[in-house]
């Protein structure tokens, strides 16, 4: 039985390509069955190098089992099941094929035991996820192209790093590496691009909201969390990750507070949440790594839940701007309740999955006496509550009455949300099953008096801040722009100045970037285009002339 190891990801990838060729009924059976098979296979992979393959002179290990891989494998398979259930009524099979191939390659990365296999699945993931975005339709073309370019660039950097690592050390295995030497730095950079780290983080909020209502549910789960996995495997305790992670945690909050589109708010909050995990990896103790893994597990579930509720709203109303929405709780009770559960979980409310995982990272920072890290994480936790915990449900489901009366979404979408809500609360109340599968033995109790009180205080005060701010907001109902609600209703203060500065800076930076890109492309086209001096057809005499010049040049060089 254990002799034959079937790569869990392969089932999803192969199954994905069968989807377009079967009847709708069988398609739906496959959508639900494939992830369950993959889940079973995840748990059948034995520890150690389970599958070896000789390719091109290298001994590859496409499947390697251990505890860390199993945590991510489990949550990925669960997520595909939830996402598949949610998307049963998605008419575009192309999107589902791409999403399943994408999830399968993410599973491939998680179980890959050597750098070349990691790279292969990494690139597959980039291609498949681009197809997920593109299958949303014409408007997704531009963001999809930008997404593909960033990820292929990341792939090139990773490839250069992997190649350098193999040639300098002769070691093809994928295990913890020190941050020294350019190959390792390139690998780290390639990983970080997928994690949504600065300076290229903008791909994430740009591309994800361009996907369809179901596509973004899949996208939110795999790319960044696979990056978290590889960072955890490759660079645990690398100090630079600490600061990168803190930056991401704060960056995500600032922009999520400024944003008006509900799905873009959630996209920024992915960066913020991944920031927590990256910080945990940077701390690098067993507790911190456990915390990062647990947080990735919990985050995948509640972020998908949030995006499912946002996706349901988009699916039923066709709108996604906060200013167009509001008051939907009357007719969409299920979506409201599930969305709120997700919001509570992301805010790390006690009795939700976010609390039991995030508090591990905070405690790890405390144990290592990293005061700055601890304070920034605490502040970021409050910030999360502001933007994702309150802002998202408040503006979408409550606030003013938008006049829309859409019903709850179809049954399969409701059931997917029930399932994930149950996991969020279940793990919050009984964290033991999650703790049991973490890579290191867990001796951690989240529900101590001080933890709970501290967290509740934090949440209470940030909640208070939001509603104080909201009072000022009520007078300006006509706002349509995405950021200006913040300073129209408020007296100028440091926060407002910061917000204004950031958004102004973003506008200028985008304009500059756009301008210089246009200039570069324009001048390249002028010279290299069909009419240009380099790209055009030269007269025969000019060609002959250059031939002679080259000959003369060679003669001179040879004679010297």
């Amino acid at each position, binding site marked *: 039985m254990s002799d034959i190891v079937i790569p869990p990801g392969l089932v999803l990838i192969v199954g994905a390509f069968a989807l377009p060729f079967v009847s709708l009924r069988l398609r739906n059976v496959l959508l639900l069955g494939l992830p369950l098979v993959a889940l079973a296979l995840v748990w059948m992979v034995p520890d150690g190098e389970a599958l070896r393959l000789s*390719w*091109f002179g290298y001994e590859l290990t496409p499947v390697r089992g251990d505890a860390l891989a199993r945590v991510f494998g489990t949550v990925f398979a669960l997520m595909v099941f939830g996402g598949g259930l949610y998307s049963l009524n998605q008419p575009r099979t192309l999107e589902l094929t791409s999403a399943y191939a994408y999830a399968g390659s993410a599973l491939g990365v998680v179980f890959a035991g050597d750098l*070349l296999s990691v*790279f*292969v699945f990494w*690139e597959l993931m980039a291609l498949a996820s681009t197809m997920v975005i*593109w299958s949303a339709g*014409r408007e997704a*073309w531009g963001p999809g*192209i930008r997404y*593909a*370019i960033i990820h*292929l*660039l990341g792939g*090139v950097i990773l*490839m*250069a790093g992997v*190649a*350098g690592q193999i*040639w300098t050390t002769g070691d093809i295995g994928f295990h913890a590496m020190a941050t020294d030497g*350019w190959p390792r730095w390139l690998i780290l950079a390639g990983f970080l691009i997928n994690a949504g780290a600065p300076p290229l983080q903008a791909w994430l909020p740009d591309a994800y909201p361009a996907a369809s209502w179901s596509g973004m549910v899949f996208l939110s789960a795999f790319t960044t969390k696979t990056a978290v996995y590889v960072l955890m495997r490759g660079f645990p305790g690398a100090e630079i990750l600490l600061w990168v992670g803190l930056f991401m945690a704060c960056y995500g909050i600032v922009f999520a507070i400024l944003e008006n589109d509900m799905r873009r708010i959630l996209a920024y909050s992915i960066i913020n949440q991944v920031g927590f995990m990256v910080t945990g990896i940077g701390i690098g103790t067993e507790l911190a790594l456990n915390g990062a893994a647990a947080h990735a597990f919990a985050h995948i579930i509640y972020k998908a839940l949030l995006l499912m509720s946002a996706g349901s709203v988009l699916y039923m109303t066709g709108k996604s701007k906060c200013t167009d929405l509001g008051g939907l709780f009357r007719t969409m009770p299920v979506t409201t309740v599930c969305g709120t559960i997700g919001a509570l979980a992301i805010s790390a409310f006690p009795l939700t999955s976010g609390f039991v995982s995030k508090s591990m990272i905070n405690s790890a920072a405390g144990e290592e006496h990293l005061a700055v890290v601890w304070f920034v994480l605490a502040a970021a936790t409050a910030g999360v509550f502001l933007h994702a915990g309150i802002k998202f449900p408040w503006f979408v489901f409550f606030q003013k009455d938008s006049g829309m009366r859409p019903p709850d979404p179809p049954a399969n979408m409701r059931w997917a949300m029930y399932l994930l809500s149950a996991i969020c609360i279940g793990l919050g109340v009984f964290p033991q099953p999650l703790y049991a599968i973490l890579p290191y033995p867990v001796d951690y109790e989240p529900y101590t008096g001080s933890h709970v009180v501290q967290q509740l205080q934090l949440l209470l005060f940030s909640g208070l801040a939001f509603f104080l701010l909201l009072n000022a907001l009520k007078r300006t109902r006509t706002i349509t722009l995405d950021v200006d609600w913040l300073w129209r209703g408020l007296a100028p203060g440091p926060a407002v100045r910061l917000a204004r500065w950031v958004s102004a800076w973003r506008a200028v930076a985008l304009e500059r970037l756009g301008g210089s890109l246009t200039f570069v492309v324009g001048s*390249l*086209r002028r010279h*290299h*285009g*069909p009419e*240009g001096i*380099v*790209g055009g*057809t*030269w007269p*025969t005499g000019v*060609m*002959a002339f*250059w*031939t002679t010049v*080259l*000959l003369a040049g*060679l*003669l001179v*060089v*040879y*004679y010297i």
Partner: protein
Amino acid sequence: MILDNLPALQVVIPLVGATICALIDRRRVAWPIALAISLVGIVISVALLAQVLAGGPISYAMGGWAPPYGIEYRVDVVNAYILVLVSVIGAVIMPYAPRSVAAELAENKQAWFYTMYLLNLTGLLGMAITGDAFNAFVFLEISSLSSYVMIALGRDRRALLAAYQYLILGTIGATFYVIGVGLLYAMTGTLNFVDMAERIVDVESSRSVLAALAFLTVGISLKLALFPLHVWLPNAYAYAPSVATVFLASTATKVAVYLFLRFFFSIFGARFVYADLPLTEILLVLSVAAMFIASIIAIFQDDVKRMLAYSSVAQIGYMTLGIGIANLNGLTGTIVHLFNHAVTKGALFMAVGAVVMRVGRHDLEGLAGIGRRMPVTMAGFVIAGLSLIGVPGTVGFVSKWYLAAGAFESGAWLLSFLIMASSFLAVVYVGRVVEIAWFREPTQAVASVEEAPLSLIIPTWVLVAASVVFGLDAAFTAGVAERAAEALLAGIL
């Protein structure tokens, strides 16, 4: 008896076939002859490769005149590999040819097309197999003259100008080559490669030998379209009939690269060329320029055949880059890329040829939405495009891996990064075609189009499959390429 004469038969059979085709001048007869000869060519070249792999180099004295006085055909791993490459591509193209040629050429010109194809095949195989510098020139001219005719047969009127420019530059290149050979003959008194290599050691510091090297470098570089001597190539490929484009793009430049390797490594000797002369730097600079500038030009093209042609110039940059790196991995990369690029680019041009046959045009706008009407053809284009980019699991990756490893070993890690970074440009130009073909609404002209006939799809997919199969299991291609590289680096013929 026949086994002993295989080297001669390899060249003589297509030559005789060309003559018969020309004399009969009937389309219905010419194609079966060309097909049969192409298939026989594969058998002979594979038999030669097998012999060489098993028993070392074969020497064949033409007409019984012993070398160095007579013309010697000499087959070793390097040129046996080239012979297989050329004859395989030729044989894959022939089943594809009749429908495509019938669609693009007037009926009374079709027999001539096959004649010219066979002459071109003769020339390319001859250049590869001969062990005699002047004999190589003769075959170079045979292949060049026949390719001018093939290009000029294109139905676009610009084909004539393209063929004319290629004629002028090709002739300059051939003249430079013959001047170089003449200088060498004056200094060494022999035309036989082996003999020349032995005698050149005594005179290598003389100005005449240096001048000969310069003339040969430029002359052959023109034929292989080394940047900036590439300008004849895009128009020639763009306006030639589809079949001619496929054949020339997959084979002509490759054989020129072989000749380059032969002169640099086997005759002048790697030590002389690389240690005493600054050739490495020149080659590396020109190669990197080709990789980037030609790729950028390709991005801005409005015509898919011209775009692929510029991409060829960029890919030739990879090949010369490996020559410039000149260590085992780099040279293996060059040699394996000869094959890998031939199947990849062949598949791409075949897919485009199928589209041209159905739609009648090859500008990018005309391809809008063609993916929905011709899904099989365009799926092949996408897979071959991935290979052009160098995605793992395709042949493009294998070549780039060896080249990057070679660059890295020689201490130039920046170069290995550039190799990977330039693939990024291929993403853009392949991506443009994919976008237009698959994501745009079909135009009216495209909407009524049918999928290409099987006789076009099967050869296309044979090459597509080859670019994946040899990417997954590179043991055969890379193994032979590595042996060829070893032979060249050892300086033995």
